[in-house]
């Protein structure tokens, strides 16, 4: 068990990667064998992520270091030694992101088994899915800047292929191309920044780089490039134009994992701002930049969602707006990091807790809208109606996901959004006003969508629909369970997993550096 925990960071990447390459071979044995194999891989990954989380949170979020090809050095190094091998460094925040990724990977894989049963190309579909999962785990576990870029590119390639997977749809092809172009651009920004940092300091390891960072003009340019590239990949307004297309055109379960991918980019952004740069830059200025990005993202995302008539696109804009709440919470935390008042940590907790809640709610909404679109045979809300008579469970699940995402108590979205409102109000009431107002507008968006799709009289079109098969219902029910449990007992989860994650970013820069370089 301890050996498994020790190797968990690398196994989380190696197992999905192994699965990605073995899936087409095992697919030759038939769909059943392939689904069993993919199911076993995601179950193993979920188990490993939980094991890692238990060990990291059990130790109070102390960073653990894993050395690829290790055996020579023990960490932390003694004075003067420099890490040159590739390291994985897992602290509270990494373990927390691992949990989110595992949750979404598990549910989307099992949802896909039923969702993609009648379609062809399943081998490729699951292969790309596992590749994307491996890339996301790599991004959140790595302790090395160049490795971060490599995993960023792995997710980019897999995500672009998944967005354009339904090649028979012209819109999918266009969305896939757009995503490929935008992700490549963001990847190049990140690569250029890493080059600038490496040229100056000769390190690629995040801890060693953070230790020697001076805050020179070149560092600021690199920070600007990293901020732009990663905010672009996270889908923050005004660089969000790819996101609605991507979430809208990808197969429904893959939209959920794309949201986890965007969150991994946000994680990278936070890791760079808090751990890599930290106090070497003016945290107040950076915090306000994040806050402005956040407000734009929240407001534009919600208002664009209001005018959509395509169900999938509507949920996609809702997902874009939620990225803003995470940026707002963490931005407020960063803005007040220098003085460290109480509410800074509360804001961080809110922003980070909202990542988990958003993954569950948006995942559920994408699953439900996929099931609705499959049953109704159209994505246009104007042509739906009365589906709730036949699809009772799906409509209940959709409603729960929608009110939870809009921040209505007693669901989980309320728990995290309330922390964000409270803390951002302390910084400036204006921020809280925008955040609350946008949440209300989001509720209006989903009321409209729910009314258009599920309510109304039975029509000829809706007479023959039915709830999807149990294979799709169970993953949705699992996410509903997550939403309700997190909504009813937010205190427990905030204390045990969110606070260590928030502290790892907000207070943990020295601990992160010392875990590699020694005190």
């Amino acid at each position, binding site marked *: 068990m301890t050996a498994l925990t020790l*190797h968990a960071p*690398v196994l989380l990447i190696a197992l999905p990667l*192994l699965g990605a390459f*073995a899936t087409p*071979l095992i697919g030759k044995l038939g769909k059943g064998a392939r689904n069993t194999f993919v199911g076993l891989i995601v179950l193993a990954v979920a188990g490993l992520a939980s094991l890692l989380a238990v060990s990291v949170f059990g130790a109070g979020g102390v960073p653990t270091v894993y050395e690829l090809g290790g055996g020579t050095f023990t960490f932390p190094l003694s004075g003067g030694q420099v890490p040159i091998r590739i390291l994985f460094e897992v602290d509270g925040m990494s373990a927390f992101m691992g949990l989110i990724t595992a949750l979404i990977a598990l549910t989307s894989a099992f949802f896909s088994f039923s969702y993609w049963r009648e379609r062809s190309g399943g081998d490729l579909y699951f292969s790309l899915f596992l590749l994307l999962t491996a890339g996301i785990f790599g991004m959140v576990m790595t302790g090395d800047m160049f490795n971060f870029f490599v995993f960023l590119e792995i997710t980019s390639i897999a995500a672009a292929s998944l967005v354009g997977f339904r090649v028979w749809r012209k819109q999918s092809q266009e969305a896939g191309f757009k995503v490929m172009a935008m992700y490549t651009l963001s990847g190049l920004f990140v690569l250029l920044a890493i080059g600038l940092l490496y040229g100056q300091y000769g390190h690629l390891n995040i801890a060693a780089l953070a230790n020697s960072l001076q805050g020179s003009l070149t560092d600021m340019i690199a920070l600007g490039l990293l901020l732009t590239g990663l905010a672009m990949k996270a889908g923050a307004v005004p660089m969000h134009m790819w996101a609605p297309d991507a979430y809208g055109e990808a197969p429904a379960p893959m939209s959920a994992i794309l949201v986890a991918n965007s969150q991994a980019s946000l994680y990278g952004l936070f890791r760079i701002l808090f751990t890599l740069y930290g106090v070497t830059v003016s945290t107040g200025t950076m915090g306000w930049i994040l806050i402005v990005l956040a407000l734009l993202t929240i407001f534009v995302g919600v208002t664009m969602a209001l005018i959509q008539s395509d169900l999938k696109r509507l949920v996609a804009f809702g997902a874009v707006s939620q990225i803003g709440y995470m940026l707002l919470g963490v931005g407020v935390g960063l803005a007040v990091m220098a003085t460290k008042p109480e509410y800074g940590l509360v804001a961080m907790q809110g922003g980070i807790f909202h990542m988990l809640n958003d993954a569950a709610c948006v995942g559920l909404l994408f699953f439900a809208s996929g099931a609705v679109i499959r049953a109704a045979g159209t994505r246009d809300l104007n042509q739906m109606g009365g589906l709730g008579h036949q699809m009772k469970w799906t409509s209940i699940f959709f409603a729960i996901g929608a009110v939870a995402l809009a921040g209505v108590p007693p669901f989980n979205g309320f728990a995290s959004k309330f922390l964000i409102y409270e803390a951002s109000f302390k910084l400036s009431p204006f921020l809280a006003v925008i955040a609350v107002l946008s949440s209300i507008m989001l509720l209006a968006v989903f009321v409209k969508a729910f009314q258009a799709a599920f309510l109304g009289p039975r029509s000829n079109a809706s007479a023959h629909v039915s709830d999807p098969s149990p294979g799709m219902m169970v993953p949705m029910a699992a996410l509903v369970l997550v939403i309700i449990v997190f909504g009813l007992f937010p205190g427990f989860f905030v204390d045990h997993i969110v606070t260590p994650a928030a502290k790892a970013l907000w207070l943990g820069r020295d601990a992160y550096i010392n875990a590699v370089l020694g005190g």
Partner: protein
Amino acid sequence: MKNNGMSIIVRTVTRFVYGLIILFGFYVIMHGHLSPGGGFQGGAVVASAFALLLVAFGSTGLKGRLNLHWLQTMEEVGALSFLALAFLGIGTAFFYNLFANSGGFLFGASVPTGSNAGVFAAGGLVPLMNWAVGLKVMTGIAAIVIIMLVGSRKEETE
């Protein structure tokens, strides 16, 4: 004659050189741990020979010699063997070089310190990983070239 290869001059020259190109590619893979290049570069060189054959003889002239299905399978085998080699050292750590300095067997020779011409039998897992990467890259790029050729042919006929 459309899509059925190029002139007799190109085809004759191709017959002479494609074997040499493949041989050079294998050389680059084999000496990856000593000289510039390695699995990826050598694999790309080998794949360029496949591309040359396709251009010179056309896809109809090569019918059956380069099987797409077979290429894709070999690509996956290459990737999986790379991962399997990485997993070999999991007793210590992922990617741990189990065979280095193990003494003779499978690239286990130890390298003398100081300047030397390079010891071919050294490197442990690294040369084996080069072969795995080389297999993946040569078959992968060949598959991509074939798929693109088939795709562009369809557009021409439509």
